[in-house]
């Protein structure tokens, strides 16, 4: 237990960050120039951190696997970004945003971190506006807000359905400015394959140049990981194809603890899987649930007829439809939080009421809304989403109900970090989705963008100074030092070994297999038997993978199959840890639903007495199970209660 010290500052929750900022150590500008920082990832967290650190005068190196920093997957976030501005005068405050986030996360997040997040949220909006982010405006020229799931106030700022894109381009432009000024050096098309420790501190990384295949070493005084989430462990997810766990997994293997790996968010409104060739899932904005009604047929005979296409959805009379969310949650209806909506859809489909070719879909019906508000209004509100849906599915949602199904969307788990966002490895920081800190067991809509930018713009620039203040006498590191040689050789050896496999099957084949195991046993609903089963299946898969994977092409050239092979190897190991974590947590909370722990009505049943902790896992070697450490969560400000949406 002593290994985990969150180093939360003294004082009341509202004063902690102020106290911290007043007391933390600073680095003089002359010394900043002598300090190098590596940032991995250029999404909202990485780009904002790199830009801010560059502005401060540190020498920054940034890495991304994409061809340009502007393509990081933050770009795909649609809905918006929360802030406690209270512009609409509807009773919002920093405290309320803090409260909603803790409650939304089902009381599995750290109070001090979440309060700080709510506190800096307003500064984010100010900065983004100054950068030229074209947020939606009222006719008077002031900023517009909209409401989002899990909150009773309108606190979400947005730029059409492309808020993530616009915020990322804002951070990208700030980053570009620092690159032009020479404070930041950009390394694109690089996979970060290992973290290098010198005397127990993070001092660098090993990368593979994806174009030339060269294994490169980079040294710095501190390493910042902002490499995003690992939802692709499920193969099918709303993540980008390249999103991966490798940078944080390499850090985990070097001693950084991994917290709550099994906490996964399944988003309820995605376009259903069309078949085996499917490579990725597309999210439809949650805002659709504001007007759409979710239903499945109430009679199995109708399900059959729909599948045989003898009837159309509109042929089913009202009485024979089961609006199951409205039935089960009359108070919130179709607007229950993401985890609840997803589970309810799964329950209906598992019971055999699912629609679509695969039976793995439910209807999202706009017929009522069109009747009530008119075609034009609906078109204005959701026109672009309807178009997107029609493009993918070739069905017109104005005429026939949309079909949706839940899909993996976000991972709340990640590297364990303290209040300084530093992992258990000194000098190794983790920001954004790749850390575990702010969302507990379930993330609220429009909070991911807030966290990424808060970490990068407003938190890390202070906390990293606190660490680096003691490093000003440390000279620049030589990337040819023994530790770097050793790490680079290990990476090369691993690549050679993988390439040397004489298998016949593609990386994707194994990735799909892993995805099926994870989705089936460690997805929306988990139970002890299934998880035990999954452990042995993953072990078998790991064995098969080492023997049976086929990687064409060479090591020293552009080789996308080799890139995937490294990522999938890490996903397989991560999958095992996720299963162990899910098995260990004998309660249901947020996105983690253990079938053994539910109320009589099928709702998640938390166990605060035994499980109000963060599960942090420590790597013990390839053949030994990871060790579990617990960080007890203390709730001084907020009283724990059962989430109820009935």
């Amino acid at each position, binding site marked *: 237990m002593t290994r985990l010290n969150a180093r939360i500052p003294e004082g009341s929750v509202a004063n902690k960050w102020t106290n911290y900022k007043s007391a933390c150590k600073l680095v003089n500008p002359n010394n900043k120039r002598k300090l190098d920082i590596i940032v991995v990832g250029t999404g909202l967290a990485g780009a904002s951190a790199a830009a801010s650190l560059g502005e401060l005068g540190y020498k920054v190196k940034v890495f991304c696997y994409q061809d340009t920093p502007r393509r990081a997957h933050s770009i795909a976030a649609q809905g918006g970004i929360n802030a406690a501005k209270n512009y609409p005068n509807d009773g919002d405050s920093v405290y309320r945003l803090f409260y909603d986030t803790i409650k939304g996360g089902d009381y599995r997040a750290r109070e001090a971190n979440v309060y700080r997040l709510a506190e800096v949220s307003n500064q984010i909006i100010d900065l983004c506006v100054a950068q030229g982010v074209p947020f939606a405006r009222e006719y008077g020229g002031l900023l517009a807000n909209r409401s989002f799931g899990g909150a009773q106030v309108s606190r979400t700022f947005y730029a059409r359905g492309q808020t993530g894109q616009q915020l990322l381009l804002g951070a990208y432009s700030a980053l570009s400015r620092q690159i*032009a000024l020479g404070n930041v050096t950009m390394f694109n098309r690089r996979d970060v394959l290992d973290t290098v420790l010198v005397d127990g501190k993070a001092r660098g990384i090993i990368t593979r140049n994806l174009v030339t295949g060269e294994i490169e070493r980079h040294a710095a005084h501190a390493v910042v990981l902002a490499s995003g989430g690992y939802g692709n462990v499920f193969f099918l997810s709303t993540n980008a194809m390249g999103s991966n766990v490798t940078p944080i997994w390499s850090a985990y293997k070097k001693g950084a603890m991994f917290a709550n790996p099994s906490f996964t968010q399944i988003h309820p409104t995605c376009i259903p899987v069309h*078949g085996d060739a499917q490579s990725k899932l597309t999210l439809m904005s949650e805002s659709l649930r504001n007007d759409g009604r979710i239903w499945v047929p109430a009679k199995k005979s109708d399900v059959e007829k729909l599948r045989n296409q003898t009837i159309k959805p509109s042929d089913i009379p009202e009485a024979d439809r089961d609006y199951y969310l409205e039935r089960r949650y009359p108070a919130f209806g179709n607007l229950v939080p993401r985890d609840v909506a997803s589970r309810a859809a799964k329950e209906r489909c598992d019971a055999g009421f699912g629609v679509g070719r695969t039976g793995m879909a439910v209807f999202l019906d706009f017929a009522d809304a069109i009747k009530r508000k008119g075609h034009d209004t609906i078109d204005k509100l959701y026109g672009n989403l309807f178009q997107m849906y029609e493009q993918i599915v070739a069905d017109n949602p104005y005429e026939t109900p949309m079909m949706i199904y839940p899909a993996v969307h976000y991972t709340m788990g990640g590297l364990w970090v303290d209040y300084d966002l530093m992992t258990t490895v000194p000098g190794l920081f983790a920001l954004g989705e790749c850390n575990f800190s702010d969302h507990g067991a379930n993330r609220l809509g429009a909070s991911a963008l807030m966290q990424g930018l808060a970490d990068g713009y407003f938190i890390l620039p202070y906390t990293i100074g606190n660490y680096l203040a003691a490093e000003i006498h440390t000279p620049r590191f030589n990337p040819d030092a023994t530790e770097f040689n050793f790490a680079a050789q290990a990476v090369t050896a691993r690549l050679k070994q993988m390439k040397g496999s004489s298998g016949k099957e593609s990386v994707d084949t194994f990735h799909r297999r892993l995805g099926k195991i994870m989705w089936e046993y460690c997805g929306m609903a988990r139970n002890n038997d299934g998880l035990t089963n999954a452990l042995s299946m993953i072990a078998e898969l790991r064995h098969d993978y080492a023997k049976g994977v086929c990687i*064409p092409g060479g090591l020293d050239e*552009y080789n996308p199959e080799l890139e995937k092979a490294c990522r999938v190897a890490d996903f397989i190991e991560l999958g095992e840890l996720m299963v162990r974590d899910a098995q260990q947590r004998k309660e249901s909370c947020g996105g983690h639903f253990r079938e053994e722990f539910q109320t009589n009505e099928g709702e998640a049943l938390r166990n605060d007495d035994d499980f109000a902790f963060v599960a942090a896992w420590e790597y013990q070697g390839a053949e030994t199970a990871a060790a579990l450490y617990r960080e007890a969560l203390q709730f001084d400000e907020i009283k724990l209660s059962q989430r109820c949406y009935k």
Partner: protein
Amino acid sequence: MNFTLKIWRQKNAVAKGEMVTYAVSEISPDSSFFEMLDALNQQLITSGGDPVAFDHDCREGICGTCSLYINGRPHGPLKGVTTCQLHMRSFKDGDTIHIEPWRAKAFPIIRDLIVDRSALDKIIQAGGYVSVHTGGVPDANTIPVPHEKAESAMDAAACIGCGACVAACSNAAAMLFVGAKVSHLALLPQGKVEAAKRVQKMVACMDELGFGNCSNTYACEAECPKGISVVNIARMNRQFLAANLLSEREKVVNISL
């Protein structure tokens, strides 16, 4: 569905490339274009061949990574979609599909269908930003922006930086890309302060990188997956003219402390 594919294969930047013919079969019409190429690669890997390299990432039309020139059109036959959002039902069974990389001096080929578009980053680095620091900015609502201006700025800011405009242009010009960024920032009060310098620096950088000039064919607008209008190019021209005609001679100020 079955297709004959003619794909540009090129080992690396210096190697000579050529079109190579492949056949794929039993493709679902619901498959996306990339899922069809995945199937081809699967086939190539298991038969000991060399899979085709292409750029792709989000596969939902927003990251701008995908960049295929399909049957003579960037992003293929549909208007307003990226390659990743193109589905095989947009083709006829038995079609022959030609797939090439973007071609421009400023976009050298890395391998097969992958090109290096870092030139677009360089243009942004030349001035595509508002010079503000983190912290020390006014409250967001102290800068009112008229609704219409914010909307027009958003129209321009929707650019995903895919480079289809360059690929479509008979002159491989980046005018729509640069025009969109210049417009986005010039339309907002926050960006006006630096507008004159910005357009000059970005245009100079664009010229240096070897992009072509504009002959107003508007192919860029026709192929832009985000429907960005050439009005933005006109706005850039206007900004550029004004910047050059109305700006004062630069004064050199020596600051010594």
